[in-house]
């Protein structure tokens, strides 16, 4: 049904896809797997007409096709459910179901539109909702399901689902699975992108793995084991990806007691020691990042107490945290992690401008010495410090976003999603650098939606689900299964 040959795509200096082949048959669910940054999303966007490949050929039903825009993709029978929600909150549910559908005229009455939307919604388990209500009246999970209903309404020949279950609970995931199976039985070719290996084994017929912009020949799911799949994705054994854990940790540094804040539905308590890495695992909206934002001075603490090195710690703005030696690196380096249009020296010295200036003037020598020292610790090429941060790859940008904080000699480093959008090689490197810092006594508190990252990197692991900490304990006692269960449906386990 769908064939992609030698597809390549680069963004400036960053190679997203180098050589990718993909074959999907009609009636087949093809799981598309790969690590963050492997190129899955780019591939999917090319199929959806959102990005144009630099080279390569796409054939649909045996005929070459040029997908120059989302409209052309739709005309070719390709339907796409994006990772980010594309539901318009102010429009009705029915209007959202038929959004962008040329056959639905503007003059169609709301009631007839609602009638037409009903069967599609029913198929995804939303049969009991009123399609004429605005979409914003419904939960994120329900809106995600509306997207699937939209996909159903388009009677696509090729359906692409990019992590459709990331924000869903178990019951809702089952609805999605049923819908996907039905679609496949009707002869639709399905490309299913997910991080949940369980879904891969339950749903897919074959698996295509993408690693560092290259695709591997598709493998029948029935011939695969979980461990083998992970190793194929990583390109190395799991244990080589992560540095060894801390042999021992130091004194108590951060004590969080009964803390409640925005994003949490019940209070959390934990202790972080010097030299320790505490990983909080949880999906988007689980509350795993909530306490991080309080410690960074971004959101207020509703109740509870926090002490840092024995002293009360209540930052009101980011500056307060920085002054107390607490560094914070958000999950969106493009937004607030790097100055893309400035060079690396200026990026790395940004948090320490006061230290590398005297009498209001910048001290170039002090600045150079400082930035070179930081660059060396994070393995950033010191001869390339004059380059603009925006021209670096995602992995190198992340090294800059993290590394600049080493300059303030923090006692606590807070990181959200340490390796989002970072390729495999750079991820292993970042893990190593972070571990090297804890060996010097730095305490690191990080949150991640990547189960394997939390399991591989942290000394202590806390799991979050729907605003509650499910459990916290030594990483030795945790397994990928326990974490995945905790962050998706802890109630089923209990």
């Amino acid at each position: 049904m769908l064939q992609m040959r030698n597809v390549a795509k680069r963004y400036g200096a960053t190679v997203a896809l180098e050589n990718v082949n993909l074959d999907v048959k009609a009636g087949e669910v093809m799981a598309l797997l790969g690590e963050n940054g492997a190129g899955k999303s780019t591939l999917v966007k090319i199929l959806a007409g959102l990005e144009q490949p630099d080279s390569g050929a796409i054939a649909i039903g045996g005929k070459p096709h040029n997908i120059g825009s989302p409209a052309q993709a739709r005309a070719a029978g390709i339907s796409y459910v994006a990772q980010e929600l594309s539901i318009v909150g102010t429009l009705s549910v029915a209007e959202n179901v038929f959004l962008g559908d040329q056959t639905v005229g503007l003059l169609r009455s709301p009631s007839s539109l609602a009638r037409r939307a009903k069967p599609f919604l029913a198929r995804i388990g939303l049969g009991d909702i009123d399609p004429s209500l605005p979409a914003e009246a419904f939960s994120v999970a329900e809106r995600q399901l509306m997207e699937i209903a939209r996909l159903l309404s388009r009677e696509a020949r090729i359906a692409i689902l990019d992590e459709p279950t990331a924000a869903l609970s178990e019951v809702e995931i089952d609805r999605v699975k049923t819908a996907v199976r039905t679609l496949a039985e009707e002869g639709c070719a399905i490309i299913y992108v997910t991080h949940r290996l369980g879904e891969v084994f339950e749903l897919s017929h074959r698996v295509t793995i993408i690693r560092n912009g290259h695709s591997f020949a598709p493998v029948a799911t029935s011939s695969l084991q979980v461990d083998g799949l992970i190793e194929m994705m990583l390109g190395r054994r799991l244990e080589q990806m992560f540095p060894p854990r801390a042999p021992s940790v130091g004194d108590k540094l951060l004590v969080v007691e009964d803390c409640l804040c925005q994003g949490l539905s019940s209070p959390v308590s934990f202790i972080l020691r010097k030299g320790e890495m505490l990983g909080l695992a949880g999906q988007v909206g689980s509350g795993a990042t909530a306490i991080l934002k309080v410690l960074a001075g971004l959101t207020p603490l509703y109740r509870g107490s926090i002490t840092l090195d024995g002293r009360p710690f209540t930052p009101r703005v980011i500056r307060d945290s920085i002054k107390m030696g607490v560094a914070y690196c958000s999950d969106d380096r493009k937004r607030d992690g790097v100055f893309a249009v400035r060079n690396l020296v200026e990026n790395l010295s940004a948090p320490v401008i006061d230290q590398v200036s005297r009498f209001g003037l910048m001290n170039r020598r002090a600045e150079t010495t400082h930035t070179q020292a930081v660059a060396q610790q994070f393995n950033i090429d010191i001869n390339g410090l004059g380059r603009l941060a925006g021209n670096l790859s995602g992995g190198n940008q992340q090294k800059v976003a993290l590394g600049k904080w080493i300059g303030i000699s923090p006692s606590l480093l807070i990181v959200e999603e340490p390796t989002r959008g970072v390729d495999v090689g750079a991820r292993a490197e970042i893990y190593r650098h972070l571990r090297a810092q804890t060996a010097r006594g730095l305490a690191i508190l990080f949150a991640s939606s990547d189960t394997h990252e939390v399991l591989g990197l942290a000394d202590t692991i806390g799991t979050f689900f729907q605003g509650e900490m499910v459990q916290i304990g030594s990483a030795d006692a945790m397994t990928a299964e326990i974490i995945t269960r905790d962050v998706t449906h802890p109630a089923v386990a209990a």
Partner: protein
Amino acid sequence: MTSIAIARKSIGRRTWRFASLAAVATIVIIAVVAGLTTPAFLTVGNGLVIIRAASMTGIVAIGMSYVTLSGNLFALSASALGALLAVIFALVTAQTDLPAGIAVVLVGAVLAGVLQGVAVNLTGNPIIATLAFGAVFRGLASVLSGNGVLRIHNTAAAWIGTARPLGVPTQSWTFVFLAAVSWLVIRKARLGRQIILSGANREAAVASGLRVNIVTCLALVMLSVGVAIVAIFTVAQFSEARSNLFSGYDFDYIAAVLVGGIALRGGQGTPLQAALGAVLIALLENFMLLNNVSGGLLMTVVGTVVVGAISVFHLLQGKNR
């Protein structure tokens, strides 16, 4: 993958070097063409006219460039503030003496900068906030002057306004001096770095612990001081002040910043480029005036040049994506 995909390629450093070179090259071309075609262009007298015209726009444009570089687009209140400060300067100087006049105007300028900075931080919208302040300033100028012409008779002031040490007007000495200082501020001073970082990525600057709000205030203070200097020079030169002084000049200041190639989004460029932009526009206007081009056409041409310049810079940015 998503974040890498979105991490838009920034404009190469070369683009901004190109921007300055383009401004210089255009200046040379206009000068050569004008010199060859218009006999009156290449005279000492005309040269001084051009320099003085460029100086008065350029000093404000240098100040404006700090606002742009800090990521706050433009202040639309500069011309109105100039009128208010000119009226205050004339009133105080006439009542007391020149040093008192200068002191009061500088204090007023700092105050105006801080007030506008606070308003910009509160509203988050520099255009609207300064537009409103512009009305306030123009209105106050009108009230204080009683809508009349305020004259001063002060020989020291007249010297400041009309003297030509070494044959060059005081305004132009000041312009060149301020251009040099402004370059040092952006390149060498801590404040310059803070302005650049705040403009390059406001969120990242806040996350790095920079006091972006204070930086915004200081950028507006520097603009206001530039405006004050021009106000003092203007009153000193003509020995009078009116509430409608500098009317319509805001576009000239902004045009100089844009033609100089300073990034509209902030964070890239130097005040020197705004100074070059001011010289370029002054040359162009002078050339056309000598060739009896009407005021309307002149405005059209300058406007077209600005549109062309920002389009070219924008295209260059796009190419690097």
